[in-house]
């Protein structure tokens, strides 16, 4: 186990006191430390939103990108250098709203990428508008009469879309969350870790207490994560009881990068570059005679 402080950096954290993102940051650091992944061996991508600042608060490779686009950027990096651990941090608006098209498409590609979605069911950074995951009736500055839409369910979408690992954590239980993140990093394929993350300023409904009263752990409830139908049923549960843990995980599926011929000889990103030899050059020219 590495010292968790390995991942500390001197940057001042700007999240609100009590923000659910602190728990996620601690869980991420703890998972990396327990798996002994050094800061240079991991590459974080994030978009825009409160939670997307997370990689900036860590000593690790990171690329803070633009709103909604971290998944395809992470995909490009993973395909260029599969040797790196790639972790994508999105919010709910970032990952499921503006980035929704990328979300449903990465599910069926199965790259070895960990997708941690900080799901606070509200837009925090832009000061309190409703989000794709906001529950129907949720009152915000842009839904003064309450949201008319039903909430987006990332878990059923992910299971249905072909994800090979789907989990949900709670930022009020960082130890449990760290275990989920460790399992996700070790999972050979795409993994979604949706995190219930209270926003203490703009979400007065889905609070720490709200979740503490409702969450239960799937692994303590006899759930079999290899059973897709059972996983779907659990993913639909929301109300008096809210499950957390690994909903679905299938092993043995090849990753996208496993199946790309150009990657058989190792990462293309780190391969030396030199002009083609005379034979290869001739072969290329011969195509046009």
């Amino acid at each position: 186990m590495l010292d968790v402080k390995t991942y500390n950096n001197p940057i001042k954290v700007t999240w609100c006191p009590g923000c659910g993102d602190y728990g996620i940051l601690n869980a991420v650091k703890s998972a990396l430390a327990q798996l002994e992944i050094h800061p240079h061996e991991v590459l974080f991508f994030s978009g825009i939103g409160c939670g997307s600042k997370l990689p900036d608060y860590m000593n690790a490779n990171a690329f803070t990108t633009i709103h909604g686009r971290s998944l395809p950027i992470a995909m490009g990096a993973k395909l260029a250098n599969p040797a790196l651990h790639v972790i994508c941090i999105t919010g709910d608006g970032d990952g499921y709203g503006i980035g929704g098209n990328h979300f449903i498409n990465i599910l069926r590609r199965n790259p070895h990428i960990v997708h941690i979605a900080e799901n606070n069911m509200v837009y925090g950074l832009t000061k309190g508008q409703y989000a794709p995951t906001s529950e129907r009736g949720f009152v915000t500055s842009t839904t003064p009469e309450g949201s008319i839409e039903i909430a987006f369910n990332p878990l059923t979408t992910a299971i249905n879309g072909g994800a090979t690992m789907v989990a949900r954590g709670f930022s009020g239980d960082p130890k449990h969350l760290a275990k989920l993140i460790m399992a996700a990093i070790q999972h050979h394929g795409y993994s979604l870790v949706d995190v219930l993350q209270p926003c203490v300023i703009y979400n007065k409904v889905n609070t720490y207490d709200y979740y503490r009263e409702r969450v239960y752990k799937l692994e303590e409830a006899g759930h079999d994560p290899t059973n897709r139908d059972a996983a779907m049923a659990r993913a639909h549960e929301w109300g008096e009881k809210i499950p957390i843990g690994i909903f679905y995980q299938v092993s043995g599926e090849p990753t996208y990068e496993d199946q790309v011929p150009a990657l058989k000889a190792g990462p293309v990103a780190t391969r030396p570059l030199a002009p083609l030899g005379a034979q290869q050059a001739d072969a290329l020219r011969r195509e046009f005679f």
Partner: protein
Amino acid sequence: MAKHVNDMTIRLAGEAGQGVESGGAGFAQALSHGGLWLHNFSEYMSRIRGGLNFFQIRVSDHPLWSHTEGVHILVAFSPDAVTDYGPHIVRGGALLFDDTLKFDHDAVTRRGTQLYGMPLAKIAQDIGGNKIMMNTCALGALAGIVEYPFEFVADVIKKNFARKGDEVVQGNLKVAEEGYRVGREKYAAPFDWKVAPLAARPDRMLINGNQALSVGAIAAGCRFMAGYPMTPASSILEFMASHAKKYDIVVKQTEDEIAAICGVIGAGYAGARAMTATSGGGFSLMAEALGLAGMAEVPIVIVEAQRPGPSTGMPTKTEQGDLLFALFASQGEFPRIVLAPGTQEECFHTAVRAFNLAEKWQCPVIIMTDFYLTTMMRPLLPSELPIEKVTIDRGELLTPEELDRLPGPYLRYKDTPTGISPRALPGHAKAVHQACSDEHDEYGHFEDEDSANRLRMAGKRMRKFHNIVEDLRGPTIYGPERAELTLMGWGSSYGAMREAVDLLNARGTRANLLHFVDIWPFPDAKAAPLIEAARELVAVESNQTGQFAHLVRAMTGRRADRLVLRWDGRPMSPEYILTKLEEAKVHA
């Protein structure tokens, strides 16, 4: 006696699926093997079957740079081909067609066109056993009519059908031979244009713009390509996909163009030479991420194969209407490089340069082409595609050994005199760093919008912009110095301008040409003296507003005296330029 030898234009036209493209390309090969100089281009509609496509071959005994208006023989496989392209046939020219094709014969002959009907399908069926060979029959007939030796056609048939087996080869050969015999017997005498092989027949390649760009990218060590199909850029994605395995390239078709450029940014950041190719609509979707590459200083290459806009516009026609958009797309100010090759050779070299410039200056490089250039094809000698001799310059990229010796912490965005911050790839213990779309400090961390930091970092980035221009080239000059008339253009209109200059000089007007490949940052110091020296400056562009002329005026203060603009979706031609100049009474 034939009136014209080795100076004609052949057009094959028909529906998608009728073998217009493959037949045309095959005939062009047969001509090229006879040492002839060619200029080919094609148009295709966005249809899987039906529609109207053409493949055009201009043939000569000297190097050609452009197509010209007017067709000497049209081989029509569909009634629409006759209706739409019949009027392009010059007086005394001919229409070759299957004699069962239904169209208004009088309308064609009224224009002075000869009708060359032949039982193409019947010959194919009777001799080859399959009507599908009717285009082979037409190519045989065409060779017979222009009295081009059959052996060149036979060689191409043998080569191109070899993989389909001997039976197919023999069938096509017999059909072509009969087509040749009938065509020559019936129509060689009345047809005034002939093609004869030249004495010198070096091996030359026939390559179009998209192929030359793709070959350049492979030569430059492109290791990652992502794209979303869009006419006329799709064939780059297809070419790279078909060569991915052999040349170690990760090629990914994505869910949209946003994901395409984002994938390229991710791969470029991780250290792979990466590119995408699209047209204006897709480039519009890429605009936000383009700025990310600028801010985070990630080297990427984008090919923007233009077609007429706005919006969906004319998807299978040509235009140079996206220039100023490419120069200024995305919010804020950041360095980018815009290059616009005009020929196949320039497509190849520009692709190589684009990857080098992107890595040296750590910024996006946009290569502007257009529909015309993507399909335009000329013969090149192997030495004109020096694949194995390209220079690969990765700029200030720290090696693992240099990183090992790094005395202090690694600063990804180090403020330097050139503005270039030495790059390190993620994965090395001494190179742990952050990259960021927000304004950031030298480490790459967010700065809370601090004024001094902003000035420093924005200044660092723009210092690159001011230094890039030293690596860029001024315009190429063609024609005599001290001309009374100077044509000025960029990108694919090079050939039409060059031939227009030749025609003007032959007619006694001293004319020359300034052609720009390197457009942005505008190579002011190299270009301004040449532009200022022009007596009568004529901007030639395939767009409606004279975008490059605007740019030149903004950068040099010189206003073009005349604009020759074309925006009907058809490519610039030498005749079009001369006609517009005559209309403006610019030259004597």
